[in-house]
């Protein structure tokens, strides 16, 4: 038992990325009403269709109730106590990074994501979202040469309203669920990616989100469209500063793939999870869904979830096109009083659609980590296949690991396989590694890394390194 106690000490590291950048922020009064929705829309100078979309969503939201089916416990959220719009006072567009507020750049430096570094050293275009409005977008010209559009949603609304009108809300309808409706009503900004027909995006696209203002719920909206034969890999990473009040994050991500298109969406999430008593921390209620509209299209979700007080997130794939493929690879680490209820939905509609689910949950402290998944095989999905695997690792005897896989099948010509197991870091394995001269801490880290390898292998190179760093961060420290 002593080994698991010290493993417990290991994972109880204070949040290293906790800090507040002191920048003037343009906020509106707290509270939510139809006027606020109109104000957000007018501040962003939006066309009528978008205002209508927001208002419709707001009206639907008013009629909805916060879902309570997940095994999550949190104090009631007062939606009137939140601020629904905050934009950093950075009115003019920057021609280069030199013009950006040095404090902002410093923030990114602290996060280990130096834009300038990345710009020079890696081939990654970064659309850094600081609070709600885009600050800098790089590599846009190079992408434009290939016809790729990578910009903030606000810009896309101005420059490509036809595309927004055609795709926004078609994957996650505004009345999909409580949080999606809230997001649809008040979303502030986010990213828009459009890959035209036949184009393989020449570089990996990346956005760093960051919550910075104490009472600002962040309502990001991401829309990625890959036309026939197009492909893109998109990376999303998050950190947030330490705060005492709980912050709500209700993002919506929509992916659309047409015939033969492919989208790979990777996330590393390390938001503030609250202290060891569960004070503070982000509530992360996210709706992520991909729609394989075209034949032979492909959507892959990879996520590494290590943060947030509460994670409520089910990246899903609707596999409509024949022979389309959906994938979900997830690592979720919870510690202290963190609660994660995450998983995926694979809805097989078209024939010969295939999906793979690999989920790895690590629970430590008094946290609770649930996998909740749905595999649904519709009556027309002949020859569909699904394989799901969810493994849990428990560290300490107070953490909970729950598994709730739903399987519904209406097609005899389909096959569904699900398996789940649970394990722990056992004393004899630790002893073995230590007897080979590997330090305790490193041994734990190695075993966790090994446990998660199936998922890390799916991450793009740079991200895999970051994910490894994140888990190591959670696991490093003095051994008791």
């Amino acid at each position, binding site marked *: 038992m002593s080994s698991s106690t010290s493993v417990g000490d290991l994972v109880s590291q204070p949040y290293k990325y906790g800090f507040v950048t002191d920048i003037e922020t343009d906020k509106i009064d707290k509270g939510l009403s139809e006027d606020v929705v109109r104000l957000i829309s007018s501040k962003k100078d939006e066309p009528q269709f978008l205002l209508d979309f927001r208002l419709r969503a707001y009206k639907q939201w008013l009629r909805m109730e916060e879902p309570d089916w997940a095994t999550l416990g949190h104090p009631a959220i007062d939606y009137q106590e939140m601020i629904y719009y905050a934009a950093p006072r950075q009115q003019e567009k920057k021609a280069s990074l030199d013009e950006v507020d040095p404090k902002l750049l410093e923030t990114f430096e602290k996060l280990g994501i130096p834009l300038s570094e990345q710009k020079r050293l890696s081939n990654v275009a970064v659309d850094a979202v600081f609070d709600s409005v885009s600050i800098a977008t790089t590599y846009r010209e190079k992408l434009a040469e290939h016809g790729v559009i990578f910009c903030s949603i606000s810009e896309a609304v101005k420059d490509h309203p036809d595309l927004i009108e055609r795709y926004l809300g078609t994957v996650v309808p505004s009345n999909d669920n409580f949080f999606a409706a809230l997001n649809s009503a008040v979303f502030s900004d986010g990213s828009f990616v459009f890959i035209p027909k036949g184009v393989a995006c020449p570089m990996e696209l990346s956005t760093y989100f960051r919550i910075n203002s104490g009472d600002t719920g962040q309502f990001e909206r991401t829309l990625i469209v890959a036309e026939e034969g197009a492909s893109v890999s998109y990376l999303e990473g998050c950190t947030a500063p330490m705060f005492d009040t709980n912050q709500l994050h209700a993002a919506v991500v929509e992916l659309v793939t047409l015939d033969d298109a492919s989208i790979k969406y990777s996330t590393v999430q390390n938001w503030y999870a609250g202290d060891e008593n569960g004070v503070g921390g982000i509530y992360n209620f996210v709706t992520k869904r991909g729609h394989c509209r075209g034949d032979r299209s492909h959507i892959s979700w990879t996520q590494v979830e290590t943060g947030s007080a509460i994670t409520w997130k089910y990246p899903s794939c609707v596999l409509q096109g024949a022979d389309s493929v959906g994938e979900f690879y997830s690592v979720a680490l919870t510690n202290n009083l963190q609660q994660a209820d995450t998983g995926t939905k694979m809805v097989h509609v078209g024939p010969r659609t295939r999906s793979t689910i690999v989920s790895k949950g690590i629970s430590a402290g008094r946290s609770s980590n649930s996998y909740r998944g749905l595999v649904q095989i519709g009556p027309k999905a002949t020859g569909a296949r699904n394989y799901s695997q969810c493994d849990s690792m*428990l560290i300490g005897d107070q953490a909970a690991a729950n598994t*709730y896989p739903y*399987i519904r099948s*209406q097609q005899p010509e389909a096959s569904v*396989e699900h*398996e789940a197991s649970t394990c722990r870091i056992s004393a004899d394995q630790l002893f073995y590694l230590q007897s080979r001269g590997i330090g305790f801490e490193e041994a734990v880290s190695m075993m966790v890394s090994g446990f998660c390898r199936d998922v890390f292998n799916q991450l793009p190179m740079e991200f895999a390194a970051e994910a490894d760093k994140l888990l190591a961060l959670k696991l490093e420290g003095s051994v008791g």
Partner: protein
Amino acid sequence: MVAAMSNSASNSAAVAASSWVTTFLERLPAPAGELEAVQWRGREALSRQPLPTRRQEDWRFTDLAPLTALTPALAPAGEQGSWPEPAAGAVRLWLDAPGDPLAGQSLPAGISLLGADEVQQALGHTLAACNCEQHWPVELNQASAPRVLALRVSAVVAPILELVSQAAGDGVMRPVRVLLLLEEKASLEVLQVQLGSGSSLTSLVIEAHLGRESTLRHGLLALGESPACFLGHLAVEQEPRSLLESVWASHGWALSRFEPRVVQVDGEATTSLKALQLADGQQLADTHSRVEFRGPEGQLDQLHKAIADDRGRSVFNGAVKVPRAAQRTNASQLSRNLLLSNQARIDTKPELEIVADDVRCAHGATVSRLQTDELFYLQSRGLSAAVAAGLLKRGFCEEVLRALPAAAAAWRPLQRLLGEA
């Protein structure tokens, strides 16, 4: 507008549900007999709880329409059907006999009837331990069951105890209640046969308390004919080093729902659950099991098999709870489903909740049709496609059926299940 419409639809459904319960209660005779107090309680509870709805997570996949289509009334006594002779070494009790089911029968050595005081004390204890005394199907049984077969098992009982009950005819309600107390080191093998036909409703509640080192082998063969419905509930409390082997097979009911709930009160016990359910026609076969370990070193081996054919629908929900006290638990659960028709449907949902770190828990689920390579192999040996498919189906069923108590063979379960009788 849409919301308003669905609201009014659900309102009218709620009205229909409460009127079904009201009619059901009105048709019951006044509470009387040894279970009078229980009946009062059950009726009171039912009048407060209308039917479960699909908005409740536990009933999400279970459409109770076949049940509400029935207008069951308590049948005073049944008629014996043309049943096979009991197998050698089996003692048959006919539970719906007009008088005392034990009349003219002597119980095997090691089994005795519980006295009225003991029944009063013990009845409902295990249900409470399993947190299901207020569960709707249990209340339905409590409201209506006129008597309980309450047995104490104090030694190793050699003969198989066969309990037969039949609900035949339209509008018949057959509530069956059984209470088994197994003392330390006692052992009993029970085969329960539930038959149903016509628009009848069978409600079964079994409570069993397994003392230390005792063994209960319980087989349930539930064979119905649509539109008959079956609601069964098995609640078992296991003390350390006891063994429970429960096997159930069901087929033919318009709606069947079986709910085994097992609690290992101090761990260290062994539980084996095996099930086979077949749903064809428009049948709905549902199993909701729950196993809870309240102490260390418990073992669970669960296998649930289902075949859905035609427009049948099979539902499985298997919860396994491993709290902090249940270190070194070893639990495995497997749900295997055959989906044989385009219009059939399988819903399966294993649920694993673990708060202990030193445990081995695994679960698996598969849904598929018959394997093409297996079919091909048999055809290559000269069997026709239909014969090959039949053989594979039999093999699929046999794995569970052969675990039934030996006395089950007389009922020819395989032939009945596969409709070859």
